[in-house]
């Protein structure tokens, strides 16, 4: 891909990035940060490409380290965000009485 196209895409992505999160309540700051954190774990794609081209053992070792780190970022990021958001689930339907019932049921 040529430089101009990449530049165009980058500039448009900056604006999209600004727009999608511009009106988020502080309630969701933590999950949003964590979710965005998981998304940049997609560097795994880059790590895979580099590892797939590696010819020497040392280079392969460094590339595989990058794969491990990127996977940890990607998988861990999405799992921990999901856990966080799971706790927000259904609170509108669950009144305080239901909450008490589940507490007692434990």
């Amino acid at each position: 891909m040529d430089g101009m196209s990449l530049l165009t895409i980058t500039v448009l992505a900056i604006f999209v990035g600004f727009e999608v999160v511009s009106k988020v309540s502080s309630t969701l700051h933590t999950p949003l940060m964590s979710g965005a954190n998981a998304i940049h774990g997609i560097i795994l794609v880059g790590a895979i490409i580099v590892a797939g081209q590696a010819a020497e053992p040392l280079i392969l070792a460094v590339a595989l380290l990058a794969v491990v780190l990127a996977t940890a970022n990607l998988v861990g990021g999405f799992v921990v965000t999901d856990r966080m958001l799971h706790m927000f689930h259904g609170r509108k339907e669950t009144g305080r009485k239901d909450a008490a019932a589940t507490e007692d049921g434990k």
Partner: protein
Amino acid sequence: MTLLDPVWTSLLYLAAAVFFILALRGLSSPRTARRGNLIGAFGALVGVVTVFLSSRLDNVPWIIGAIAVGSAVAAPVARRVKMTQMPQLVALFNGVGGGAAALVALLELGHTEDPWVRVAVVFTLLVGAVSFAGSGVTFAKLQELMTTRPVVFPGLPVVMAVVLLAAVGTAVAVVLTGALPLAVLLMALGLAAGVLLVLPVGGADVPIVISLLNAFTGLAVAASGVVLGNVLLVVAGTLVGASGTILTRAMAAAMGRSVAGILFGAFRGGSTAGSTALSERPVRSSSAEDVAVLLGYAQRVIIVPGYGLAVAQGQHTAAELALALEARGIEVDFAIHPVAGRMPGHMNVLLAEANVPYESLKEMGEINSKFRTADVALVVGANDVVNPAAKTSSGSPIYGMPILEVSAARQVIFLKRSMRPGFAGIENELLYEPQTSLLFGDAKDSLAKVLGAVKAL
């Protein structure tokens, strides 16, 4: 031989990028947040499968093994970590992502002669390394492996300036020569800069730094996308860089700080570290029974939960106490400071975990005017977010941070472990006020005792 031709590859990367945009959008609203995150995970899966099907890859068994190792380490940790320790885990995941981006750029350096691509390489190396080392220090601070206070030493600004100048010089040399040893040196300088950047940041500001480093990693990933000519990395990295920047500013605004002030405040010598000495001044300490009487015969009670509540895992007991008080016809609200806990929105997550309904969680702007009509403000394991020093003492590290105005309530009760100052390390004058009483002990134990006493009224 590859299974996908370039057109299909581009289309699938485009689809993955759209999934990421939808994910961020979904994460911005409570109703759609969880689905948004799953869409993001699906987008990541599409991206990873596409790279396997579209590129000529050697070493595939090794790569799959490495992915298995990474997943096997990260998934159980992410699943088991206590919600109170979640901020440092996010910092850790962010750091390893930055590290991965830097390593990718390092290995790609030998494959290019183009000076512009080399510029992208040095950017990724430097920013990725800063993010890796900075996140490491952030993790150590939040995990309390090291002091949570700002670490400053004479000559820190000079050291930082020297490191940055050396980094710029090395970066130029790498672009001109493409020499690998110089690139390794640049990475080392980036690591040093990351450590120096975060060391002087005070405890209460650390969460904002996580968000900032998150944006940094996004930018590093975008630059590595330029290096590899991979559109998905460019789009995903830029999205995170842009949204992370906005989010960092929103968080800083919620604390009444500027991002520059947080990063460079200690360099300018503007913030003074608080004293660790325990005060000998008298305070009014109280028993669980006294507290129960104050609460049980009040009309309006506002509970101010803080990190201490979360550490003691007392959220459920606090929710039960609120329930018991409401059963007596008392109006109970939870006042949530934007940075209660250790990260903006952290306390909302913890109380949602304890099934406290969303409607009784009041944000600061909404609740602050109501303290005047409250009979009792019950502060559980919070300190800095109710410390009047933020308004009155201009030398204080938390000066300028908006606080919950608990002192306006008729009675203030603190449940505290000890007289030790809060995360920011400064004393709270409110503890010595005549309307204040203190109940010492672990937040959960104290709440359980108060709950028992309220039920016995």
